[in-house]
């Protein structure tokens, strides 16, 4: 598209990717109108702390704010909250809002994020069975945690993924009894190497979490008032609870795009510059499925992905394609351990451990796991080892690989492999 220097760019979604796109449009020289529409009542805020410091009560409400609405206004970005987009009319270049209003666009950004999955279980609709995506979700969980503390009721977490485990760690920090039910035989099975899954299982058990792997849930038992009081398993066992947190993954919000005839495959299909097949429409963040050079689709749900795609989305609309090819990275805080992941570990066939995984969890182990495929480094997961993580990003960006022996040898400086300049 010709650079939309004049015009009206509409951004659907006022989260990480939407905000990044709006700001990058301004810093990229766009002087036309920008409207960012968000269906939540809040302006842009940080989601990662919701399951961590914020839920632990270590930071206030106001500190979640990513950009104050007045600051967006100063940059000429119109933020409208509490507004849901119901349809995109590509032929007329308009988006239709709930309530009937239509907004014309010269460029459109889809930054609609994702929605937590649910489970087809009897009792799942109870008011104390809660997902965690938004600030309002987190507030509801925080209130229930307080009730659980007051009444000495356990917290049940369904799903041993990042969100579930972060909530479990936070609830343990508050002294609550916590059970995590994971259907797979290991934690974080999709993303971590088996030995790191086992390490995380040991960490949570060490902190007093009742961890159930291979968990088969039959139903959620509710009381006369409709509140969940226990989770029933297929083997007849019963876990009483005052709160159930659902952390079983998310689905991309691609319904608007699909209804408008844009290609979707578990997310809005975009190229590495965030372009859809419609030259006026780009998409960024959790709602996307990025098509890689080999034709496969990559779905990432991370802050880095949202910010990088946001920058690419702005660039694409300005007619200056900026491919997003950087090494993916992600972090997760649980207890006093920071996990930092660089690269994508799927398909690894060999691993090397650098540092000390430590038999004693309390001793503050710091280590990294290097994933190899066909002898080539593809990903590094670091625990309390930011140095390894940052170096790993450089190694992966540069496409250079240590041997597994070099990776495992703490005395070998991997930095020497990174090309200078």
């Amino acid at each position, binding site marked *: 598209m010709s650079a939309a220097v004049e015009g009206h760019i509409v951004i659907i979604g006022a989260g990480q990717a939407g905000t990044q796109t709006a700001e990058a449009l301004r810093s990229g020289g766009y002087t036309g109108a920008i409207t960012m529409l968000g269906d939540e009542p809040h302006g842009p805020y940080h989601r990662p*702390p919701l399951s961590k410091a914020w839920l632990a009560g270590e930071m206030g409400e*106001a500190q979640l704010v990513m*950009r104050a609405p007045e600051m967006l206004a100063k940059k000429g970005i119109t933020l409208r909250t509490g507004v849901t987009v119901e349809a995109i009319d590509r032929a007329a270049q308009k988006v239709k809002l709930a309530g009937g209003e239509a907004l014309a666009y010269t460029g459109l950004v889809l930054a609609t994020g994702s929605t937590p999955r649910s489970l087809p279980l009897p009792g799942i609709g109870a008011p104390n069975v809660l997902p965690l995506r938004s600030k309002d979700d987190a507030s509801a969980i925080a209130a229930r945690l307080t009730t659980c503390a007051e009444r000495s009721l356990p917290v049940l977490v369904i799903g041993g993924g990042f969100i579930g485990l972060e909530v479990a760690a936070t609830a343990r920090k508050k002294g609550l009894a916590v059970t995590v039910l994971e259907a797979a035989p290991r934690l974080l099975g999709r993303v971590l190497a088996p030995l790191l899954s086992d390490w995380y299982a040991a960490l949570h058990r060490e902190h007093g979490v009742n961890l159930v792997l291979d968990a088969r849930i039959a139903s959620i038992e509710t009381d006369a008032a409709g509140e969940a009081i226990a989770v029933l398993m297929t083997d007849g066992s019963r876990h009483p609870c005052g709160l159930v947190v659902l952390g079983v993954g998310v689905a991309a919000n691609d319904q608007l795009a699909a209804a408008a005839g844009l290609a979707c495959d578990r997310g809005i299909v975009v190229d590495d510059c965030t372009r859809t097949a419609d030259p006026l429409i780009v998409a960024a963040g959790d709602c996307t499925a990025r098509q890689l050079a080999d034709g496969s689709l990559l779905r990432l749900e991370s802050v*880095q992905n949202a910010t990088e795609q946001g920058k690419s989305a702005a660039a694409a609309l300005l007619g200056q394609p900026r491919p997003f090819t950087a090494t993916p990275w992600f972090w997760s*805080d649980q207890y006093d351990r*920071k996990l930092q992941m660089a690269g994508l570990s799927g398909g690894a066939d060999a691993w090397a451990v650098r540092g000390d995984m430590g038999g004693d969890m309390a001793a503050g182990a710091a280590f990294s796991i290097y994933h190899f495929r066909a002898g080539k480094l593809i990903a590094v997961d670091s625990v309390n080892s930011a140095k390894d993580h*940052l170096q790993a990003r450089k190694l992966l960006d540069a496409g250079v690989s240590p041997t597994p022996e070099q990776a495992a040898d703490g005395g070998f400086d991997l930095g020497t492999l990174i090309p200078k300049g």
Partner: protein
Amino acid sequence: MPNITFIEANGQSTTLDVPEGWSLMQAATANGVEGILGECGGSCACATCHCYVDDLMAKVLAAPAQGELDMLENVADERRPNSRLACQIKASAAMDGATVRLPATQE
């Protein structure tokens, strides 16, 4: 509330009343100080909140923890002896009147 001044690389200066306990990154990003990005939301995971602290600030700050030191080794702009991560600095009354300078780039 301590009064803290942020000076961006282009000279733009912003003075904020930062509530005690807030991180300088939070105060800066919420108030549109552009020289700090804070992409990870203060988790000490992205190094896009690099700043240079003045002597007053340095005096009241504890030494950086290992995680912060590791991130500081990888900041985008020049690392100096007074480099810190703004998300790891919690505002306190003793910082009243301090100034932090921001690097030209965070990424």
